[in-house]
Structures are given as structure tokens and as C-alpha cells.
């Protein structure tokens, strides 16, 4: 019993990384109606920037995370402002292709800037060690990841339900033309949302650097999982993304425990089942 509970807790920490990356993807899709293929690469950039600020420049961990969010946010802003904005009106296949081009560029860019060797900074002292949970040591770091993930969930809920920026974004998402007509600066909202979504991806990447390495290719590894989660949850649905992150994270932790051989396959099976039963995803509008 304890084994199952403990594995569930580990799965929860796994789910939180998935949540952070799929939250950004979902928000961007929900408002801009763009599937950002390069979202995983922004996750990777977050990891590399956090390594630079924290591991190389020796800034405090929190500050390093903050700076890498800002850095990736800025990158997102450039992507939206100078590229995506010009092609909103054309076929969405091209939007997908454009963001695919960004993957190629960013993946090589990190190799040019940081080299081919993976990067891993030390664990900050205050996150080192373990607490006991269900009779076994549970890493403080994983608890931290869970806390950040849940905090982000609460903050996002508060942001979108309680803040005016969030309401403006929701209004824009549901009817961008009417939002424009009541005085919402829609292009600026788009830039803001894209930047915000990029920062969420960066947070997922930055937060993991001390325990997960930064290396070329991690973005491409993450993006497929993030896609599957957003498809399962219902494209553009934040609550759906949260629930399906939990589902995929926890189920794959149990998959490792009970069916170690089929783990990779597991997530696809979930997806196909969901799509057969509910083609628009679990929480489609």
C-alpha cells in the first residue's frame, strides 16, 4: 500500500513538469489558436538559461529561474512579434511549419552557444535532502516541484478567473473581434499571452535543471508528450491540461512500477482510448 502511495507521489512530481509545459501550450492555443511546435524548445531554452545564470554565473537559484523566464519570455515575444503575427491569417499548416523551423534553429543554437555536453548545476542546498513519506525518503526537490506545479495551477486559476488581465484574455480568446471592438488591444494581448506561455515552458525547463540535465534534444523529447496531454485534455482547455497531466504523470509512474516493459507505449494507449471515446478530448468545450 505504501509502495503504491509513494509511487503516486513520485508520479505527481512527474506530472507537474508535464503540467507546466502543457499549460503554456494550452494557453497559447486557447487564445492565439496556434499550435506552437517550438514550445519544447522554449522549455529547453529555459533549462539552458537557468544553467547559465545559476550554474555558471552563480546567481541565487530563485533569481536564476526568474531571469531565465524573462529571457525566454523575450524570445517568445520576438517569435510572436516578428514572425507569427505576420501569418495569423493564413493556413494553420504554415503556422505549424514555421514553429517547426524554430525547433531546428533553437536546437542547433544551443549547441553553438553551450556546446554538445549536457549541463547540470548543483542542487541548491535548501532543496537537497529528503523528507519521509509513507516510510520512505521523499526528495525535497520533488516536493518542491509539486509545490511549484500546484502553485502555478492556483496562480493560473486566480489569474484567469480573478484578475482583470485574465478576464481580458478570456474575453479575447472567446471573441477576439468583439474584444477589439470594446477597446482591447488584441495584438498586444496576443504578444502578452505568447510571452506568458513561453515563460511557463521556461519555468518547467528551468526548475528541472539541477536534477534533469540540460542537453540538446530535450525539447523535442518533451513536445510530443505535451501534445498528447493537450489532445487528451481537449485542445485549449487549461483544466483539461491539468487533469490529463496528472493522469499521464501518475499513470506512467505506475506503468514503471507494474508494467516496466510497456512504459513508452502507455501514453499512446491512453491517447487512443480517449480519442475513441471522446474525439474532442476529455474536457473539450
Amino acid at each position: 500500500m505504501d509502495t503504491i502511495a509513494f509511487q503516486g507521489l513520485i508520479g505527481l512530481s512527474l506530472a507537474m513538469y508535464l503540467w507546466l509545459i502543457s499549460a503554456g501550450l494550452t494557453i497559447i492555443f486557447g487564445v492565439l489558436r496556434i499550435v506552437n511546435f517550438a514550445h519544447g524548445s522554449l522549455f529547453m531554452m529555459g533549462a539552458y538559461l537557468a544553467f547559465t545564470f545559476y550554474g555558471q554565473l552563480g546567481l541565487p537559484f530563485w533569481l536564476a529561474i526568474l531571469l531565465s523566464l524573462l529571457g525566454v519570455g523575450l524570445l517568445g515575444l520576438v517569435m510572436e512579434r516578428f514572425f507569427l503575427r505576420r501569418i495569423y491569417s493564413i493556413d494553420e499548416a504554415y503556422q505549424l511549419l514555421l514553429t517547426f523551423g524554430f525547433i531546428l534553429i533553437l536546437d542547433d543554437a544551443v549547441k553553438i552557444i553551450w556546446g554538445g555536453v549536457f549541463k547540470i548545476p548543483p542542487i541548491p542546498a535548501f532543496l537537497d535532502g529528503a523528507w519521509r513519506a509513507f516510510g520512505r525518503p521523499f526528495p525535497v526537490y520533488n516536493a518542491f516541484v509539486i509545490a511549484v506545479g500546484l502553485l502555478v495551477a492556483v496562480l493560473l486559476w486566480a489569474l484567469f478567473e480573478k484578475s482583470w488581465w485574465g478576464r481580458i484574455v478570456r474575453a479575447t480568446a472567446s471573441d477576439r473581434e468583439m474584444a477589439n471592438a470594446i477597446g482591447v488591444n488584441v495584438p498586444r494581448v496576443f504578444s502578452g499571452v505568447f510571452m506568458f506561455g513561453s515563460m511557463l515552458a521556461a519555468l518547467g525547463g528551468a526548475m528541472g535543471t539541477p536534477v534533469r540535465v540540460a542537453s540538446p534534444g530535450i525539447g523535442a523529447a518533451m513536445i510530443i508528450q505535451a501534445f498528447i496531454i493537450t489532445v487528451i485534455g481537449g485542445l485549449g482547455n487549461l483544466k483539461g491540461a491539468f487533469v490529463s497531466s496528472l493522469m499521464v504523470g501518475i499513470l506512467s509512474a505506475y506503468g514503471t512500477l507494474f508494467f516496466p516493459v510497456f512504459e513508452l507505449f502507455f501514453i499512446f494507449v491512453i491517447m487512443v482510448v480517449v480519442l475513441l471515446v471522446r474525439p474532442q478530448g476529455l474536457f473539450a468545450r
Partner: protein
Amino acid sequence: MVLILVVLPSLAGRYSLYLVIQILILSVFSLGFNLLFGYTGLLSFGQAGFFAVGAYACAKILLAVPNLFLGLLGGVVIAAAAALLLGFLSVRHTRIYFSMLTLAFGMMIYSIAWKWRDFTGGDDGLVGIPRAPLAIPGLPALSVASMERYYYVVLVVSLLAIWLMYRLVNSPLGLALQAIRDSESRAEFAGIAVRTYRLVAFTIAGLYAGLAGALLPPLENTVTPPIAHWSTSAEPVLATLLGGIHVFGGPIVGAFLFFMIKDVIVRFTEYWLIWLGVIVVALVMGFRGGVVSMFARRAARAEAASDR
């Protein structure tokens, strides 16, 4: 052009020959993809899945029965069957949903290739696949062991595939698919069973992917899981985009350019991805018609000018 391709082995080096085989394979692959994308309006990001099914099926057959004809035929049939099955689930969706779904299905095939070791050999793949003789029932068996011979097999098969595709897109069926691309609702009201036709296009695209895939193992003697990865799916997408999606020859020219660009860039820098990325971004931002239609447009303009 065909003449040059026919005498190519006596003109070109072995590497050029090998490269042309690769280009022909990617051309067939991309033509199938473009039937789906350019002609039916569905962007699939999972074609590598069917490419891999074709390759693995051909490899398994060649390892069991050394007959290239059976290998190619088996690869094509099994890939088409897989496309029919997954297409049934996918064509219910369109646009971005379709793209993401095909991406995920492609990756599912990738994970099967990786995981079903008893059958696929896992990450080491299937090795020692023979370039078996081509034995069409009723005809004498033909040895194709040398690169030159195999080149002719690929050439004949590809030209046949290109010709058939040309016939297809210029047939009533091809017209119906283009109608669906332009307006789904209008096509319904023209009496076309849209979903069924989409499935047909998906299956044919899967068949072409499977044919392209089946041509690979006899060339390389190996099949490994990365050919099912989504980055392989991106190759026909890039080739087609490069050459032009709304012209028949676009994918073929694009396949050629894709290999040339890559081959040229990797001779100068190992950072070839970044250049490819820049080309993709530039194409999307500026030249969505692709190279062929760029030339076609210029030619049309010149023609119009000379009319006056």
C-alpha cells in the same frame, strides 16, 4: 530527363547514384504526402509511421523469402492496411487536430518499432537484409545485388509511382480530392462522401509512404526505429514545402533540393539544422508557393507579356 536518369550509372559516381536513389525514394514518399496535403488539404505529421511499416514489412519478408518483388509488394500492402486502420480514426478530424493525431500515431508506430524487439530487433533494428533477386511470378528472376541494378529497380518503380500519381491527381478522383481541399461543405453538396474520400487519400498516401519505405531496406540492408520518428515525417513535409505544394512536380524537385541543401551544408558545417531551420522560416514567411511555382509564375508572366 528520363533518358539522363537511365544512363546515369555510366555517368555518375557511386555516391551520386546512391544519392539519386535516396532522392527518388523521398520523391515517392513526398508525392504521397502531398496527395494528402496539397491535394486533399490534410497536413499529416505522422507519415514516417507508414514509411517505417513499409520498410519493416519489406525487411521481414526479405529475411524470410529472398524475393524483392514480394518484399516491395508486402511493404506496400501492409503499410496501406495500417494507413487504412489509422486513417479511419484520423480522418474524423481535420486541420490542427488531424495533424496532432497523425503525429501521435506516427510516434506510436515509432514506439512499437522500438519496443517489439522480437519482431523489429529493437533499437539495433533488423540487419543483414539481402538485396534479394526480383522474381515476379511468370518472369525469370533478376539479380539486383549491385548498386547499379538496384538503382534501375528503384528508378522503374519510382517512375511508375510518379506516373500513377500523375494519373491519379488528374483523374476524376483527384479532382474530387481537390474539391474537398477547397471546400469540404461544397464537396458534400456535390454528392461526394467527404470522409470516405479522405480515407482513400490517407490510404494512398500511406501506400506511397510504405512503397518508399520498402525501397529502403534493400538499399541500406538495415532498418532501425529512427525512420519512424517524427523527424522523418518532417522530411516529406519540408521537401514538399520547398518544391511547392500546389504543383505536381513540387515534391520531386523539393526532394532533390532537400538532399542537395543538406548535402551541401553538411560539407561546410555540422550545424546544418540551423540553416535548414532558417530556410523553413524564410519559405513560410516569404515563398509559400515553393520553388516550382515561383518559376511557374515567372514563366506565366513572361508568356502573358509576350501575348500582348
